[in-house]
């Protein structure tokens, strides 16, 4: 039997924010770049979800943006990480490693009692 896909959806929802931090950490991006990077992954998402999340992350001072002219069409918002954002991403990466190590470790040893 396959795992119910909904079982992981809450987990994915919570992780999306950290994936965005990770994408933005690689350099200035605008919203469509973020969607592009996430497309064809398990975290593929849409503007309707991304924009409210970006606005929340900006309010939490994780991201900042600046307007920049684009070749064609209206100017775009280019996002960068703030210091808080960088710190949170570093914390998340450390925590993630601890977590995967823990899951592996628990899987290796049978219970002793």
């Amino acid at each position, binding site marked *: 039997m396959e795992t119910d896909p909904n079982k992981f959806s809450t987990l994915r929802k919570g992780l999306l924010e950290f994936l965005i931090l990770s994408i933005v950490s690689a350099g200035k991006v605008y*919203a*469509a770049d973020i969607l592009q990077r996430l497309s064809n992954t398990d975290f593929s*998402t*849409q*503007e*309707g*979800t991304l*924009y*409210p999340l970006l*606005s*929340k992350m*900006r*309010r939490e001072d994780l991201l900042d943006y600046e307007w920049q002219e684009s070749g064609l*069409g*209206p*100017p775009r*918002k280019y996002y960068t990480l703030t210091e808080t954002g960088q710190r949170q991403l570093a914390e998340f990466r450390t925590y993630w490693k601890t977590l995967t190590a823990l899951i592996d470790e628990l899987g290796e040893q049978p219970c002793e009692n």
Partner: protein
Amino acid sequence: MRKLTQISLTGHSAVFRANDDAYDVLWRYLERARLNLKDNPDHEEVLGDLEQSIGEKFLALLGSDERVLTIADVNTVLAEIGPVEPDRAEPTLANQAPRTRRQLYRIKEGQEIFGVCQGLAAYADIPVDWLHLIFLVLATITGGLFILVYLALAIYLPVVSTREEYFARQTALLNTL
């Protein structure tokens, strides 16, 4: 005969021409998004971002074509943009009304006699000394009859060894509801 509407979207200088019903669909989408963003202090900005993206997708769809946007065009673009969900789509355990179907236990930790008072104190979240006092007073004014109540509780209540264990069980119980 068909009514046409002009649509201007945030960030786009050009106006889009659309069928009346296509405009209605777009308008309803944006109103719904506005409603779901009402708790977001930057909702005007987010709506502007959405309008800008919708405009960009209209441009990509139309190309150099000067045609009027149909309801199918609008539906295609809105399906790409996806719905704006309210911030808290699903109620979490924390904001559900607390359901208190708690269980009373005897607690051995710190027990004077059988730990009935310890159990009641943890259950009602009041200091155990108060319960000792209440029990003593009741036992006195009922001429010792209340001791039977205490003994009955001591016999019937299940027992846990520590307060910590008691609270862990309550949490587990609440989570299974």
